[in-house]
């Protein structure tokens, strides 16, 4: 819950953006982002909301950590798991509709 995940905006419909996270596309809401967001921008996503537009000049440095984490295929890794959970849109535990 501490770590936001950056992704690239590929479409915008009102206050809802479609954001690409390394090939996974998710809906991210723009209600609280601090600057106007356009297609092609990167945003920092946190529990379904963009909390920051990241300047393009600085995105490379921001993406590197996540690329390293996602390249790792250890399913038990906590940090990579948190990032995957944010992206996949599932919680840390499987949803149980009981």
């Amino acid at each position, binding site marked *: 819950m*501490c770590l936001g995940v950056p992704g690239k905006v590929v479409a915008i419909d009102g206050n809802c953006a479609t954001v690409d996270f390394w090939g996974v596309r998710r809906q991210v*809401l723009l209600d609280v982002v601090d600057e106007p967001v356009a297609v092609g921008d990167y945003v920092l996503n946190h529990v379904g909301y963009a909390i920051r537009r990241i300047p393009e000049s600085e995105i490379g440095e921001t993406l590197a950590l996540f690329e390293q984490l996602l390249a790792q295929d250890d399913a038990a890794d906590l940090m990579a798991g948190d990032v995957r959970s944010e992206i996949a849109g599932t919680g840390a535990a499987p949803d149980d509709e009981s």
Partner: protein
Amino acid sequence: MTSPDPRAAFRELKFRDPVRAQAMVEALGRLTTEIGRPRVSVMHVCGSHEQAIAKFGLRATFPRALNVIMGPGCPVCITDTPEVDEGVALARQGVHIATYGDMLRVPGTVLSLADAQADGAKIHVIYSAGQAVELAQRLGEPVVFFATGFETTAVATAAIILKGLPDNLSVLSAHKYIPPVMEIVAEMPETAVEGFLAAGHAATITGWGVFEAFVERHRLPVVVAGFEPLDILAGLVKLLELVRDGEPRVVNMYPRCVTKDGNLRAQEHLWRVFRPVGGRWRGIAHVPNGNLRLQDAYGHLDARRRFTIDLASLWDYAPPALAQSCICGDIMAGIKSPADCTLFGKECTPERPVGACMVSSEGTCKIWQQYGGHPDLGGIA
């Protein structure tokens, strides 16, 4: 789950800039020597910082005298026992509970939400605040969003409230606000912290300016840092420079995500919906202004007002005996480490957690259990 050798992790670490990483490791050694005290303790307040420190074996590269402590930075762990009890009691009263996944196994006084679920209570794991709204619309029955987390997550709760909730959805807020707890920990004599590494993404919301008053009051430096191993090393180097120079101030080492004023729009959402009130953080202390509760204007959405929460029904059970030996509170206050706990890795494991710090992926104990974050390995760089 095995704990890899952190020294090997550092050797194998694919820093994007190994020369810079090594230079910063050397700078930490030089600065610690210049400070000249046998122990220099600094604290970070973020589970993701601890994950990165432990995962990338950074502690193994720190000089022996440098003690980097994780403070109350796990939002799940610091959710207080009575707050979990409220969720459990509501669930046992037949209300649907929607909450973030890590909350399920966090212990209440007697039961966790997972225990209640095993007894048939209706608990739903969500990933985003918006899913609580969708769940309520789908079910058409009373749903309570048990909303936990720091300001980053509280902003999302505020956003769904401002958009308008379905009539059958209410909010049980256990949200916490980080800046006030730093004041409490800074004043704990046992902790003896000489500086803070502030969490980059929470500061994205608040801005780094929020720490200026803290620095003024406590004469302790604060450095805002990102989550890359290089970001963390750079943050620590800057923090030790400030400690050495004895001129406490705030330095922002994460400008690509953090500005002085922060995200004003998010702050506006946050303070329109929430008001800060004093309350306990699990195992740590009463933190003035550390809890976020709904403003009166949204009182009709507050689960604490809408339901009679029957906590007494939980007290028919005896609390688990092992929990009496748990030292999560002292660990989160930075007074002790998991290595000081008699249960750590024995009676208390990620599979069978006794305390909150072993439950969450952002809890110190679970992180140490996975990565082996033991600080005694200092001085090998």
